[in-house]
C-alpha cells in the first residue's frame, strides 16, 4: 500500500462517524432498557428494522404523492416512523415483558429472543423476504482537496445523519436530566422499589423507556433507509449485535456511554478496513471490546454499581 495520506485519514473519520452515529442511535435503546430494568432487550434490532421499513414506505408514498421537498419528506417520515415504531416498542413491552416482571432474569431474556424471532418472521410474511430497495432521496455533497488527487467527499446525507443524531441525543439528554419524567426515569434506574414506594408509577416509566428507545431506533432506521437504500427483514440482527456491542463498550446503562461506544465502534471498523484488511474490521471491533472490558469491566463510561435488581 502507498503511504499515509491525511485526506484519506479525514475521509475515514467521516466514514466512521457516520457509521458510528447510526450504531449510537440504536445503542441508546439497549442501554436505557438495561439501565432501568436490567434486561437486555434482544428484540431491539427488530424494532429498528421495523423503523426502517416504515421509513421506506412513507418515503415511497410521499414521492408518489409528488412531495419533493427534502425537509418535508424528512419530517413527515421521521414523525410517522417514530409513531409507528414507538407503538411497537410499547406493545412489545406490554405483551412480552410486563407480565414477566419480577420473574428470574433469564425469563424476560428468553421472551426477548422470542419477540425478536417473531418480529423478523412477521415482517417477512407481511413484506416478503426480499430486499426492498429505494433510490437515494438526498444526493450530492461537498468535495475538498486537489482536483487531480484524492478528494475528500462529505455528502449532504452524512451531514444530515450527524446533525439529526446530535439533535436527538441532545434532546434525550435534556429530557432525562431536566424533565419530571426524566427524573422519574433516573429514580427508577437507581432503585426501582424505592421509586415505587415514593409514588412513581414505575410501569409507566418502563413503558416510556421502551417507547423512547424504539423512537430512536426508528430514527436510525429511517436514516439507514435513506443512506443505504436497502432494507430486508434480517437487517435488525447485525445492526442489533453491533449496537449492543457499542452499548457494552460505552458502559451499558449509561446514555453518554452508548453514544461514545457507537462512535468508537464506527471509527474502529473504518480504520481497520482502511489500514488493515476489510476482513479484519469485525475482529478489530470485537477485540477492542474485549480489551476495554478487561481494563474497565463496566465499559468506558459505565458506573461500577451496575449489578443490581
Amino acid at each position, binding site marked *: *500500500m*502507498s503511504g499515509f*495520506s491525511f485526506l*484519506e485519514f479525514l*475521509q*475515514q473519520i467521516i*466514514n*466512521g462517524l*457516520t*457509521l458510528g452515529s447510526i450504531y449510537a442511535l440504536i445503542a441508546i435503546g439497549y442501554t436505557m432498557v438495561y439501565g432501568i430494568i436490567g434486561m437486555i432487550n434482544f428484540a431491539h434490532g427488530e424494532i429498528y428494522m421495523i423503523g426502517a421499513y416504515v421509513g421506506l414506505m412513507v418515503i415511497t408514498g410521499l414521492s408518489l404523492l409528488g412531495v419533493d421537498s427534502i425537509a418535508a419528506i424528512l419530517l413527515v417520515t421521521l414523525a410517522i416512523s417514530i409513531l409507528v415504531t414507538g407503538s411497537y416498542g410499547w406493545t412489545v413491552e406490554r405483551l412480552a415483558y410486563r407480565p414477566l416482571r419480577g420473574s428470574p432474569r433469564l425469563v424476560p431474556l428468553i421472551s426477548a429472543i422470542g419477540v425478536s424471532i417473531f418480529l423478523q418472521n412477521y415482517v*417477512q410474511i407481511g413484506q416478503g*423476504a*426480499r*430486499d426492498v*430497495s429505494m*433510490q*437515494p432521496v438526498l*444526493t450530492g*455533497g461537498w*468535495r475538498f482537496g486537489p482536483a487531480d488527487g*484524492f*478528494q475528500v*467527499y462529505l*455528502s449532504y446525507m452524512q451531514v444530515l445523519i450527524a446533525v439529526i443524531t446530535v439533535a436527538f441525543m441532545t434532546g434525550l439528554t435534556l429530557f432525562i436530566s431536566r424533565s419530571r419524567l426524566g427524573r422519574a426515569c433516573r429514580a427508577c434506574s437507581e432503585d426501582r422499589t424505592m421509586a415505587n414506594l415514593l409514588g412513581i408509577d414505575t410501569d409507566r416509566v418502563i413503558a416510556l423507556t421502551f417507547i423512547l428507545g424504539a423512537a430512536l431506533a426508528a430514527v436510525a432506521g429511517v436514516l*439507514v433507509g435513506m443512506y*443505504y*437504500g*436497502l432494507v*430486508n427483514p*434480517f*437487517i435488525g440482527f*447485525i445492526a442489533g449485535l453491533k449496537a449492543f456491542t457499542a452499548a457494552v463498550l460505552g458502559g451499558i446503562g449509561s446514555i453518554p456511554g452508548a453514544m461514545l461506544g457507537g462512535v468508537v465502534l464506527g471509527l474502529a*471498523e*473504518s*480504520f481497520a*478496513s*482502511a489500514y488493515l*484488511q*476489510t*476482513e479484519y*474490521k*469485525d475482529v478489530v471491533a470485537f477485540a477492542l471490546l474485549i480489551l476495554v472490558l478487561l481494563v474497565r469491566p463496566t465499559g468506558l463510561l459505565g458506573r461500577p454499581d451496575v449489578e443490581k435488581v
Partner: protein
Amino acid sequence: MNTFNRHALSIAAGMTLLGLSGLASADTIKIALAGPTTGPVAQYGDMQMMGAKMAVEQINAKGGVNGKKLEAVIMDDACEPKQAVAVANQIVNQKINFVIGHLCSGSTQPASKLYEDEGIFMITPAATNPAITQQGYKMVFRTIGTDDQQGPTAGRYIATKIKPKKLAVIHDKQQYGEGIAKEVDKTVKAAGITPVLFEGVNKGQTDFSALITKMKKDGVDFVYYGGYHPELGLLLRQSREQGFDAKYMGPEGVGNKDISAIAGPASEGLLVTLPADFSADPANADLVKAFKAKNEDPTGPFVMPAYAGVQIVADAIKGAKTEDAVKVADYVRKNSFQTPIGKVAFKDNGDLKEFEFVVFTWHADATKTPAK
C-alpha cells in the same frame, strides 16, 4: 375416557391423512426443487423454480414419463447451508429420488453429501463452485459451468481487453464468491497483472465507505467482485457517491434486475460473466414463447439450466426404464441429452463436458448486451 376418545380421534384422523397422502403420491414421480424462495437471493430461486416448473408442465402435457406424471415439490433452503441440510433430510424422509438444486454453492455442498449417502439423484442448475463435483460423488451433477471456467473467462477478459493499471479483487468470503475471486486472481496473475488489493467483505454488510476510500486513494481503476448482487449493488452505489469511478465486474451471481434496483444509474456499464443467453437461441423460440405466455422472463441465467435439469431427469428415467436413482445416474453419465442449453453430456465427476460463459455489459435499465 374423554381424553382417550379425543386421542383416538386424532390418531385416526392422522392415519387417514397419511393414508391419503400415500395414495396421492403413488402414481407420480416426485422431483424436489431445492433452492431459495425466501432470503436475499430468492430472485435466483425464482429463475430456477420457473424453469423447472415449466419443464414439469410441458413434460406432463406430453403424457409424463413412463405413464406417470412428474410432481414438483418446492423446498426452500434460503441459501443457508444449515437450512439446506434440513431440506435434504426432508427430501430423504419423503423418499423423493430426484433433486433439481440446490442453488447456492454454500448450500449445495453440505446437501450433496446426504444425497450421495442416500442414493438420491441431484442436479444443480446454478451452483458453480468446483469443489461440489470434486468430492468423488456418483449422484451429483450440474447443468451449469464452474467457477474455474467462469473465473478464467473473467480473468482473461480483464487481462486482454481491460488491461487495468490497478486492479482490486473483492469477495464476500462465501464459498461461491471467494472461490471465483481466487480463480480471477490466479488468471490475471498468470497474465502478469498483480491485484493491488485482495479482500473480503461480510455477507449482509451495508457500509463499504472505508473500503471505497482505500481503493480510491490507491488509484484502483478496475474492481472484480466475487459474490452476489445485494453487496455489489451497495458497493456500486456508494462508489459513485464518493466519486470513485473505477469500472466493476462480477460473476453471474450479480446479474439480475435487483442490481439495478439497488445501484440505479451506478449499475450502468457493470461487466458480468453469465451463461450464454439461451433464450436468444432460435432453437428455443417455442419455449421462450411459452414463458412469455405465462408472463415470465426466460432470460435469467438459471431458467434454462433448471429446465434442462428436469428434462435430463425425465429423459434418463425413460431411457433407463427405472426410477431407481442410482441407475438413472449411471444412464445420465453414459448418454447425451438434447436440451434448451444445447446437446449436453457429462464428465465422470458430474460436470458438463462443455459450458461457455460470456461477458455481458449490464445497463441501468436492468438489460444486458454482449460486451465487446
